[in-house]
């Protein structure tokens, strides 16, 4: 009798306790699944739906797929779960191609999602694939408890001979194991307001514009010309953050060398941008991605923005910041750069290896589906064959850019990006700290700014040391 009561009490306790173990569950949305349902309906039997979807996709996948290595992770007919931070990309991806997947949105911007990921991935909830950003991917791919090699899904580096090389380098961990595959080459360019350019600079075509800003010296000279012509009303770049991205990513220098913080690029940039601020070429109070950032574009107070490929699609940043009038154009800008990017990584707990492998192949290997996705989403996909084909055929035109093909511009940029050891796992945090310190202390001299940055960075990261 008393044993029974005790057991019941324990059960009640456990039931109460278990309800508290719920993490990051709010954004759990099944992809609308119209594709999944129709597939199932077409096949007539719902139990087989999973297997047949995978099989169908396999046969569609074409020749490269059969060449893949051995899949060593388990595979059952559970739903493929992908952890991500934004619906926009992934919802489209699933609806377009996969249908049979669930995405777990950790709901944050790419820069900050890392924190939520750690919580989710540690919670033990189902995860097969997760999407990681360049700024913090190394935290996850260098830890075997978070990520498994792509070779466990039968995918090897050879599959990425058509990919842009820098994306493969970022997806490779410290031991040289390929652990992340990007579907984007997040090349960026300088998008400018063509009306303002014509009014103040007399520029009528993207080629002329590019000729005026194809180096940092010319960019600054044009900024001066613009300021003069517009009576100081129009700045050449919207934010310091945008300038930093364009300036730094191609400099090929990591924030951290071993455990030492390096500030060479930061110093160079600080020197440059202080001149910009003193001369009024950029407004230091405008925060990247803020309402002000949108407003300066809408009100014609900036000539242009540095945008990544994912800013140029329908409903994205370009459109929000005034692009819907169609009077914006994009050029390569003073320096080739990339911004962000989304790497698909495999969780060691992946239990749907067949589907996961298929998913990764469709978005990062298969040129046909990637081309289709590029045209559908406006995203610059990570496949030279697909992109070259689109550019050669001229099959893409972006109404937000007055019909210009952004891929033609970005293809040159993507080819020009070189990476070697230029990212570290501290990048995102150090970049944020640097830009914040820079803005807060913009009126101090360069050394004072760098000292303030170094001291804050050291306080945040006891692992690191200064030069």
């Amino acid at each position, binding site marked *: 009798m008393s044993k029974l*009561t005790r057991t019941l009490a324990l059960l009640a306790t456990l039931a109460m306790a278990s309800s508290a173990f719920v993490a990051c569950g709010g954004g759990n949305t099944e992809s609308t699944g119209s594709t999944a349902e129709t597939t199932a309906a077409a096949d007539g039997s719902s139990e087989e739906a999973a297997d047949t979807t995978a099989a169908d996709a396999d046969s569609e996948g074409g020749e490269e797929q059969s060449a893949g290595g051995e899949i060593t992770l388990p595979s059952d007919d559970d739903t493929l779960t992908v952890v991500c931070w934004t619906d926009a990309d992934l919802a489209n991806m699933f609806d377009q191609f996969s249908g049979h997947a669930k995405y777990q949105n950790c709901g944050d*911007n790419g820069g900050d999602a890392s924190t939520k990921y750690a919580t989710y991935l540690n919670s033990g909830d189902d995860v097969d694939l997760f999407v990681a950003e360049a700024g913090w991917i190394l935290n996850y791919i260098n830890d075997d408890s978070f990520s498994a090699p792509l070779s466990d899904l039968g995918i090897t580096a050879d599959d990425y001979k058509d990919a842009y090389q820098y994306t493969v380098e970022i997806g490779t961990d410290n031991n040289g194991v390929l652990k992340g595959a990007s579907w984007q080459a997040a090349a960026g360019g300088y998008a400018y307001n063509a009306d303002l350019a014509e009014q103040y600079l007399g520029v009528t075509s993207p080629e002329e514009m590019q000729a005026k800003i194809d180096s940092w010296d010319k960019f600054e000279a044009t900024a001066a010309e613009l300021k003069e012509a517009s009576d100081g009303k129009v700045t050449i770049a919207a934010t310091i953050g945008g300038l930093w991205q364009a300036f730094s990513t191609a400099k090929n220098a990591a924030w951290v060398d071993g455990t030492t913080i390096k500030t060479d690029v930061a110093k160079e940039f600080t020197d440059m941008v202080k001149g910009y601020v003193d001369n009024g070429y950029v407004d230091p109070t405008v925060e990247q991605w803020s309402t002000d950032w949108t407003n300066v574009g809408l009100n014609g107070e900036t000539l242009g923005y540095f945008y990544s490929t994912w800013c140029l699609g329908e409903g994205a940043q370009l459109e929000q910041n005034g692009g819907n009038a169609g009077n914006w154009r994009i050029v390569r800008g003073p320096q080739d750069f990339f911004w962000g990017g989304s790497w698909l990584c495999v969780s060691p707990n992946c239990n749907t290896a067949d589907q996961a492998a298929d998913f990764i192949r469709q978005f990062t290997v298969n040129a046909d589906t990637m081309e289709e996705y590029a045209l559908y989403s406006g995203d610059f996909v990570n496949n030279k064959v697909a992109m070259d084909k689109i550019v050669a055929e001229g099959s893409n035109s972006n109404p937000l850019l007055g019909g210009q093909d952004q891929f033609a511009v970005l293809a040159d940029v993507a080819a020009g990006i070189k990476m070697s050891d230029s990212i570290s796992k501290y990048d995102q945090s150090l970049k944020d700290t640097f830009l914040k310190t820079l803005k807060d202390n913009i009126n101090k001299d360069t050394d004072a700014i760098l000292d303030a940055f170094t*001291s804050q960075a050291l306080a945040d990261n*006891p692992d690191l040391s200064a030069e």
Partner: protein
Amino acid sequence: MASAAQRRIKAISYAKYGYMFIAPFFLVYCFFQIWPLIYTFILSFKGNQSSYADFVGLENYSTILFGKGSSAGAQATQQEFLKALGNTFILWFGNFIPQILLSLLLAVWFTDAKVKLPGKGFFKIVMYMPNIITAASVAALYVNLFGDSKYYFINGTLMNLGMEEPIKFISDPVVSKIMVMYIQTWLWFGNTMIMLMSGIMGINPSLFEAADIDGANSSQQFFKITLPLLQPIMVYTLVTSMIGGLQMFDLPYLYHNGANFSRDLETVAVYIYYSFNKGTVAQANYGYAGAASIIIFIITAILGSITFYMNRDKDAIAKKKQRKKAEKQMKAKMKQGGLTL
């Protein structure tokens, strides 16, 4: 002699069922309250970032309090923590003092039988209202009203009226602190006012009547009757506000531009959150966060004790002492054998 049946009934203890029924609560409490508390202590003795699993003794404390530790950024860490501690106290004083004065004034007015304020109920509700809104919404509201540039309502209006430069309500180190103090006051004065009103209404009205008849004016009544008798409620308000103030997190964390919180408003709670909430375990500073939590706990305990000590009922204590003394004397006399009770 009791019968066998009676003995058996006595032997059956129903108490254990009582314990069983309350056991779930205590188990849950241990899991989710006691253990995290203990674990915070343990974490404060462990390392940060890549050395998160190592036991480092008191190094976290020496780093954040005295700037002496093995990491290159020990001094910067100390400066940040001390700044956060300073901000915490500045923000707490800055909102507590205006809040208590305003609440006290309004509470006296609203409870005074001679001041016949119309629409008392309405005002009470309106003044309490901000407290119902979550701090997150309040922060969003103020950030959007008081934005730093001309695109936001307040600055836009002021600049249309002829102001040259926008006021940096959000990014200026001093103005942003004042704003947060103001918002905190605005959020909480209604709540404090209700608390104080209940205290004032608990005072025996005949005291006020007697004072009236004796010719005491309102300020005399306030300082000689209301304030002394309100002391218990005041202590309660002070202690709860102090605990809340030292743990102030939501507004200082949310009141900012862009993606990161504002360092000028960084309180200890924000520092703790920021230290441990940085992605994977190997990125976060659990040790510093733990040590800072323990330090703020100790500070709260000390300040709380001081408040209680200063506000204890001195008459009651004096009486207790007297009684004890009398008892002792009595016992001494009994030992001598002179008296029997």
